C-alpha cells in the first residue's frame, strides 16, 4: 500500500448547498489549484522580476494585480510577496519556482493552504458586495485586479479572471481551515440570487 497515492479531499467536500435554485451566482471548486507563496530575499525583487520575465514571459506585478494564465500566474499580495498559481500539479509549480527563483526568493508551498472558489453569474457582484468591503465595479476592479481583504473575520485574497459569456468571473482564495465558515457566508449572500454549481463547459 505504500506506493498507492493518497486521495485529495477538497476543503469544500460535503458542504451543504442550501436549496437555492437559480443561476444568479454560480461556483466551482478550484481547490486543486497549485499555489506557492514567494517572498523576495533582501533587495532581490528586481532579479525576481527579471527571472519571471525571462522564464515565464510575465511582467511581475507590483500592485495588487494578477498577471499570467493557466500554467502560471503571479498575484501581488504584499510588498515583495506574491502568490503564484498554476493549473498544473503543485510539485511541478514548486519545482519550477525553486529552480528559477530559489536564489532570490523564499518559496513555500501553499497549495493545500487555500480553499479556492471560482464565482460567476449575473449577480456575482451583488453577492460579492455582501461579502467583501471592496469595490468590484468593472471600473474599479478590472480583469486582472486582485485584493487581499477580509470577510467575516476571514482573511481572503480574490482576483478577477477573464470574463465568461455570462459576465465577470472571480477567484477567491480562503485559508483552508475557514472553508466551512466562508461557505456559510457565501451561501447566505448568494442564495437570494440562486446559487448553483457552474456547469462544466
Amino acid at each position, binding site marked *: 500500500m*505504500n506506493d498507492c*497515492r*493518497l486521495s*485529495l479531499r477538497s476543503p469544500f467536500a460535503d458542504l451543504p448547498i442550501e436549496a437555492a435554485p437559480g443561476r444568479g451566482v454560480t461556483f466551482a471548486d478550484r481547490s486543486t489549484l497549485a499555489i506557492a507563496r514567494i*517572498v523576495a530575499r533582501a533587495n532581490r525583487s528586481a532579479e525576481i522580476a527579471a527571472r519571471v520575465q525571462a522564464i515565464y514571459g510575465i511582467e511581475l506585478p507590483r500592485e495588487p494585480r494578477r498577471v499570467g494564465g493557466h500554467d502560471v500566474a503571479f498575484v501581488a499580495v504584499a510588498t515583495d510577496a506574491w502568490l503564484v498559481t498554476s493549473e498544473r500539479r503543485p510539485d511541478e509549480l514548486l519545482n519550477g519556482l525553486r529552480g528559477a527563483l530559489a536564489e532570490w526568493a523564499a518559496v513555500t508551498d501553499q*497549495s*493545500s493552504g487555500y480553499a479556492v472558489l471560482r464565482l460567476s453569474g449575473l449577480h456575482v457582484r451583488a453577492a460579492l458586495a455582501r461579502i467583501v468591503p471592496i469595490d468590484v465595479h468593472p471600473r474599479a476592479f478590472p480583469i486582472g485586479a486582485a485584493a487581499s481583504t477580509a470577510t467575516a473575520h*476571514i482573511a481572503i485574497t480574490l482576483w478577477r479572471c477573464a470574463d465568461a459569456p455570462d459576465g465577470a468571473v472571480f477567484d477567491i482564495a480562503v485559508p483552508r*481551515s475557514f472553508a466551512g465558515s466562508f461557505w*456559510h457566508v457565501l451561501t447566505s449572500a448568494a442564495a437570494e440570487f440562486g446559487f448553483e454549481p457552474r456547469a462544466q463547459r
Partner: protein
Amino acid sequence: MSRNSAASAAQPNRLANGGLIERARPLSFRFDARAYSGFAGDTLASALLAGGVRRVGRSFKYHRSRGVLTAGSEEPNALVQLRHGARQEANTRATVAELFEGLSARSQNCWPSLAFDLGSINSLFAPLLVAGFYYKTFMWPKAWWEKLYEPAIRRAAGLGRASLQADPDRYEKAHLFCDVLIIGAGPAGLAAALAAARGGARVVICDEDFVPGGRLNGDRRAIGTGGGTDWVGEVVAELMGFADVRLLLRTTVFGVYDGSVRTGSTEGTRTFGAVERVADHLPEPLPHQPRQRLWKIMARRVVLAAGAIERPFVFGGNDRPGVMMAAAVRTYVNRFAVVPGKRVALFTTCDDGWQSAFDLAAVGVAIESIVDARTEVAPSLLEASKAIAAPVHLGAHVVGTRGAAGLNRITIRQRDGALRHAAVDTLAICGGWNPNLALTTHLGGRPLWSASLAAFVPGELPAGMSVAGAARGTFSLAGCLREGAAAGAAAARELGFRCESPAWRADDELFAVAPLWVIAGSTGKAFVDFQHDVTAADVEIAAREGFRSVELLKRYTTLGMATDQGKTSGINGQAIMAALTQRSVPALGTTTFRPPYTPVAIGAFAGTHRGKHLEPVRLTAGHAWAKERGATFIESGEWLRAQWFAAPGEQSWLQTVSREVKAVRRGVGVCDVSTLGKIDVQGADAAQFLDRIYTNLFSSLAVGKVRYGLMLREDGFVLDDGTTAHLAPGHYVMSTTTAHAAKVMRHLEHARQVLWPELDVQLASVTEHWAQFAIAGPEARRVLEQLLGDAIELNDAAFPYMACAQFAWRGLEARLFRISFSGERAYELAVPADYGDATIRAIMQCGESLGIVPYGLEALGVLRIEKGHVAGSELNGTTTAADLGFGRMLSARKDFIGRAMAQRPGLTDPARSVLVGIQPLDPAARLRGGAHLLTPGGAPTLENDQGYLTSVAFSPLLESWIGLALLARGAGRMGECIRVHDPLRGRDVDARIVAPVFYDPQGLRLQG
C-alpha cells in the same frame, strides 16, 4: 364630499378618488383586535386614519391619549407594537410602517385597554411627575429604589415590549461604492441624481420612504407641464436607465462616519451607514431574503437632500388626538386620499400652513377657521381663503383644546383678546419648518441660526458634502430643483465628470414665517416633547433650578431623548429656554445630533454574525474523519478540535480520556495537532533572526535537528514556546502554540519589518498548508514503519529524538519530526492538508494491528500535565521564564527580545510565584483549575493567598488527581502541605507540593 360606498363602511375617511394607493389591492389588517381595511400604498397610520381611528396609543409618562401627529419618520406619538410572536417589534412608528395583508398591531403603554387605561391616573399625579422627578423623589431610602420604585416606574412608564424570543429572520450587511451619494429622493435629491447620472457618475440615491418623490407626493404641485408626481415618474424612469445608478427605497442613511475625502481632491471616500428595510413591508421575508440590510456606503461625494421637518407649537392640549401637523394633513389627503377629519381648523405662523387648508377645501372639507398668529399675511393668501369661504383670524392663537377621546373643540384667542370656541375634530398646525440637517452634524459640524427662517440651517459641512433644497433652508420647489441640479452636477464635475445642471420650471411659492414657539396664556398641559411627555412647565422648572444650558436641559427633562430624538421638539424646547433666560436661540445653541438618525435594529448591525456564526470556525483536514469516529469537539480559539473519542459503553468522559491516555503510555495513540502554528523562516540571516527571537541559541542547531525554544515579549514576560526544526540550510519551520499562533506571527513580522529590516529573512505562515498528526507511544515507530515504508529510515540511529526530515512519500512532500509533548516516544508527521484526511485514515489502518487509539485534546492535556509541560494556562502573559522553570534557557551569550526587561527587579523577585506540582493527599479528591492555594489553617483571605492551580487532570497512571500551580516561593517548598480552596465549586482539598513532573522524571520513555 363623495365617498366610495363600498369602502365607506370600513374606511369612512377615504376619498373616492386620488392618492398614490392601489385601490385594486385592498388589504385587511387588525389594530387592537379590531379588523380594518386599507390599500396597498397605505401606511398603518393612513389606513388607521382612513378607518376613523384617532387614538393610537398612550403617552410615556402620563398615559394621555395620543393620535397620529405626522406623516413621516419624525412621528413621536403613533407608536405601536407591530406583528405578533417572535417577529413583533416595539415602538414602531405607524407613519412609516407599510400596510401589508394580515398586518396586526397593538397600542402600547395602556392597560387594560387603550380606551380605558388605568395608568392615565398618572395624570392626576402630574404635579409629582415633573422634570427631575426621578432625581428628587426617590432619594431615600436607598434600598427602596431597586425593590420598589424602579420596578413600579418601569411598569408604569414605558412604551412597547420586547418579544423576548429569538428573532426568526435574517439580517445582512453589504457594501456600496459610488461617486455621488444622494440622501433623499425628493425634488432636490432627484434633480441632483439626474444631473450627476447624466454626467456618467456612479450614483446611489437613498430614501427612507417606499415611494420616491418626497414632498411632491404630499403636495399638489406642477413642474413643467405636468404634476409633481408625473415629474417624479419621468425622472426615476430616466435614472433607472443608467447602469450605474441605484435607487434604494425604504433605506435610511442614519450616520456619517470616517472618510478620507479632502476638499479640492478627487481622492478618498467617506463612509455612511444606511439601513434598508428589505422585507419590513411583507408579512415575512421571502425565502433567502433578509428582513433588513445594513449598507456601508463609501461615497466620494454626497448631496444631502433630506428635506425639512415641520414643527408644532407648544400650547395647552396640543397633544390631543386630532391635532396634526399641517403638512401631514395634506399628505394624508393628497397621497393617501384620506381626510383626517370633517371639521378642520388651521393654526399657523407660516404661509406654507395655508396650503393645507386649500388642499382640504379642494376635496370638499370645510375649513372652520384659519388662525394665523401673524397680524399681516400676503394678500394672495387672504384671497384664496375667501374663495374657500374659510374664516381667517389674524394675530390670533389657539389657547386650548377639548375632547376626551379626541379633539372636539378648540379655543381661539382673537387679536383683541376675546376667546372664541370652535367645534372641530382636526386642528392642523404649522410653526414653520426645520431643515433636516442631522447628518451635517455627525462629524462635529455646528448648525447656524437663520433669523429669516427662524430655524437652524447647516453650518460647516464635512469635506465632500453639499446640501440642497429644504435641508439647506430652501423651501420653494423651484429653489429645490435648482439647488439639487446644481449640487448634483457640481459633485460629479469635481470628480471629473462632464455634466450640466438640468433645469425645470416650477413656481416659487410663498414661504414666509414668523417665529412662534409657545403660546402664552394657554390652558392645560402644553407639550414640548410628545414622546417623553416633557411640557413647557418642565422647561421652566429646569430654568428655575439652573439647568439652563441646552445639554443640561436635555438631560434634566429628558427632552429630545426619546426614540424620535427630539425631531419635532428640540428647537421648541430650546426656544422656550432661551426666552426664559433672556437669551437668543442662537446664543443658547442647540444639542448635536448623533447617529443613528432613526432607530436601527441591533440585528441589522449584527448581520449574519449571529449565534454560532458570531466568529468563524476553523476545521482541520482531519475533521470529517474525527466526526466519523464519534469525536466530541471543543472550541480552542477559533479551531474546533476533538476533545475525546468516546468508545461504545463508556460511561463518562473521564473513563474515555483515561483509556486514551493509557493507550498512549502503553501502546500507541494518534492526535491531530494541525492547529499548532507553523511558520516558515527562510533567508541567509534566518539563524541570527531566531537567536534574537528565542531566549536560547538556535544558530548552533544542525540541519535535520529540532530544538525546543522559548520566546519573550519585549517586556520580559514569556510570549510562547515551541519547537523549531532546521529543515535545510537557511530554512527553518517554527511551531507555536495553537492559542498564540497569530500573535507570534505578528511578533515575528514586527521584528523582521521594523526592528531588523537589515536581516535577510522571509516569513510565511504555513499552518494552513500542513496537516500534522502526532503518533505517540511505545509502538509509534512500528506504526510509522508500516506507514512510511522505505520513504524514510526510522531506526533510532538514523532518526533519533529531536530529529527532523522532509521526504517524498506517496508522491507528496512530507515532513517528520521526532518531538514529544506526551513524554513518550513520539513523532509528528506533516502532509499537505489536501491529503490530511487520507493520511489519518492511512495511519489508523497501519496502526490497527497495534491497537492504535485516536486521542483528543483532553488526553493531550493529561499527558502533558503528567510531564509538567506548560501550555496556554501557564503561558498566560504573567509568567517569566524563571517562573516556569526555564530560567536557564535565558542565554547569556547573546541578545534576544525581552532580555533587558526580564532583569527588572519585579521579574526576578524570589517571592514570585513559580510552577509547582500539586497532588492531593486523597488521590480521589478532585482538583479544580483556578482553585486557590492557602496555608493550612489560614483563613480564605487575599492576604493568605499563596497562588492558584493553572491546570488539573486525573492521571490514570498515578490513579490520582494532579495539578500544576503557580505558587509563591514555590521552588523551595517541595513536600509542604497546602490547602486547595475552591469557594466557587467545592470543598477544600488538602494537598502536597511536589515537583511539576509526575511521570518519568528522567525522560527515559522518549527513547522507549
